[in-house]
C-alpha cells in the first residue's frame, strides 16, 4: 500500500490586530493616529487570510505602534492641559485673593 504523507501546513498564530485598542484611541484620544491603527488592523486580517503571514506580522507591529503613539500623545496632551488649567486656576485664585485683600 502506498503511504501518502499527510501534508498539513500549520499556519502560524494570528498576530494581534489591535482593532479594539485602535478604536478606543480613535474615540477617546481624538487623534488621527487611532485611524492609522484601524487601517493596519484591517491589513493584519486581510494579509493573514491571503497567507501573507510575514506581512500580517508587520502590519500588526505597525498597528501597535500607531495605537501606542495615539495613546501617549493623547496622555501627554492631557497632562499638559491639566498643568495649564491648574496654573491658570492657581493664578486666578491668587488674583482674586489679592483683590479681596485690597477691598
Amino acid at each position, binding site marked *: 500500500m502506498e503511504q501518502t504523507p499527510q501534508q498539513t501546513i500549520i499556519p502560524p498564530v494570528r498576530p494581534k490586530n489591535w*482593532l*479594539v485598542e485602535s478604536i*478606543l484611541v*480613535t*474615540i*477617546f484620544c481624538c487623534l488621527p493616529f487611532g485611524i492609522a491603527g*484601524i487601517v493596519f488592523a484591517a491589513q493584519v486580517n*486581510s494579509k493573514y*487570510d491571503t497567507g501573507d503571514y510575514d506581512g500580517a506580522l508587520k502590519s500588526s507591529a505597525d498597528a501597535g505602534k500607531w495605537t501606542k503613539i495615539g495613546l501617549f500623545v493623547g496622555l501627554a*496632551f492631557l497632562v499638559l492641559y491639566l498643568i495649564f488649567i491648574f496654573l491658570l486656576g492657581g493664578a486666578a485664585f491668587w488674583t482674586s485673593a489679592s483683590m479681596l485683600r485690597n477691598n
Partner: protein
Amino acid sequence: MLMIRTKKQLWIVSTVAIAGSLLYFYFDPSFNRFFPPCPFNWLTGLYCPGCGSQRAFHDTLHGHLSSAAGHNILFVIFLPLLFFAAVVALHNLFSKKKWGQRLFYSASFARIILTVTLLFWILRNIPAAPFNLLAP
C-alpha cells in the same frame, strides 16, 4: 482585538475602566474645565471622529443614550462592540476556548469599522442641514 493576558493587566484595565466611569459619572464634561478638549479640534478647528465622546460617555452612564448620540453617534454605535470586546477579553483570560476570533479577525469587519469611521469623520464636518446633526 483586546487581549488581557495576565492578572496584572486585568487589574490595570479594570482600575482604569472603573475610575474613568466614576469620574465621567460624577462630573459633566460640558461644565467642568478639567476635561481636556480634543487636540485635533484645538489644532485644526475641525471635528475628529472622537469629538463629543467625553460628553457622550457622561450621558451614557446616566442612561441618556439619545443625548449621547447627539454628541457622538459613532461612540454609541461602537459601545456594544466595546462591551462585547471587554466580555470576550475577560472570558479568554480564564478559558482555554477563545471567543471572538471570527468577528475581530474578519477582514471585512475591520474594513467596515474603518469605512464607517472615515465617513463619519468627513460627514460631521459638513456644516449643512442633515450632516450638522453629526457634529458634537
